[in-house]
């Protein structure tokens, strides 16, 4: 447990967090491995865990009927996967698939939500860390939407 706590606190997402919060979080955390091609989760499934990638690469895929899936983002070491665990009805909005051997921490969503509800300092700390990531991803998605490399630009 002690090593898991040390490793968890070394993840960039939690850099500099109060060690007391680390102790709370580690109780919700498990160590995971995914083989290439293995899904962390599928669209529509229950968002009951969220992931901090330690090593490897995870592709976020969207599906449309009669078309190959589209990768909309690829995430690597130091990044987090998934925010749907925060937002009712707690269902994933896309697929997440490991494209290489991947190691990640899985944080149990119910456990985490309960701890954040019980300790608003922890809740605020988590939101403060999550929100910038979500905003950066939203901005990136907007840039992707512009299709800047299309035929009317360089």
């Amino acid at each position, binding site marked *: 447990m002690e090593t898991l706590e040390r490793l968890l606190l070394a993840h960039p997402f939690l850099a500099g967090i109060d060690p007391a919060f680390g102790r709370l979080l580690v109780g919700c955390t498990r160590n995971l491995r995914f083989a290439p091609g293995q899904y962390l989760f599928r669209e529509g499934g229950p968002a009951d865990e969220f992931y901090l990638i330690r090593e490897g690469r995870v592709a976020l*895929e969207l599906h449309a009927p009669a078309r*190959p*899936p589209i990768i909309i983002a*690829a995430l690597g070491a130091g990044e987090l996967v998934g925010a749907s665990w925060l937002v009712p009805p707690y269902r994933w909005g896309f697929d997440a698939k490991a*494209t290489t051997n991947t190691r990640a921490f899985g944080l149990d969503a119910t456990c985490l939500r309960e701890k954040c509800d019980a300790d608003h300092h922890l809740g605020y700390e988590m939101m403060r860390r999550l929100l910038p990531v979500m905003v950066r991803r939203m901005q*990136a998605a907007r840039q992707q939407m512009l299709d800047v*490399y299309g035929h*009317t630009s360089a």
Partner: protein
Amino acid sequence: MSAAIAPSPADPMLPAPWRVRAVRRETADVATLDLVPLEGDAPRFAPGQFNMLYAFGIGEVPVSVSGDPADPTRFVHTVRAVGAVSTAIVAAAPGSVLGLRGPFGSAWPVDAAEGHDLLIVAGGLGLAPLRPAIYQVLAGSERFGRIAVLYGGRGPAELLFRDELAAWGARADVTVAVTVDHSDPSWHGHVGVVPALIKKMDFDPSNTMALLCGPEVMLRFTATALRGAGVAADHIFLSMERNMKCAIGLCGHCQFGADFVCKDGPVLPYDRIAARLAVREI
């Protein structure tokens, strides 16, 4: 922005005939042409400069040089077919003749970047105007700090120079990161926008020079990300594109605020143009 080389002193408005020696299809609508002069030697150029290429009877367009500045025998140009002239150039057969005048414009500050960490950031076709700078840098990489080439494209099929990117990526003296906006599952690399790659790079922002080329929107977001990371505005250089006619600072077609892109640019420092980039009509 430095060490630009002036065009031949003969009439700079008069295209000289150049033979298409070889054509390489890069993507569905992009080709790279090797051009050799029918007479005389190829003039020297500095990375970042461009030539005016003339498809006889159709028209003339500015195109950056994409070849190695250390190769004095030819001009290499990488062109995307977007309209009448560029389509004619992309379709030019080996052996055919194009008109060429140049080289024109300012250059990437490669020499001034020595001793700095160097971020070379390209989007889409923007890798072509940066390739001469990459060749020059890699030929003397010991003179620079950490060197990174960041490249973004719409999808894997639209990426330029994939063999070369792989070869550069295999070198110990340069980090290469390629990202695409989206992809099918056969692509195992980065997916996301170029500015997001900057956060993943290891560089000293107080001693970094950045060279940027690509669509203007991507330039804006990338420059903002670099500023956010602490890179000084006067250490960020962008290659701008504007419509051109004379290419020698006479006609005013390429005016961009106080600058003529053909003469003062195309490579311009961000501190000089940041305010203009934010204005829609310029």
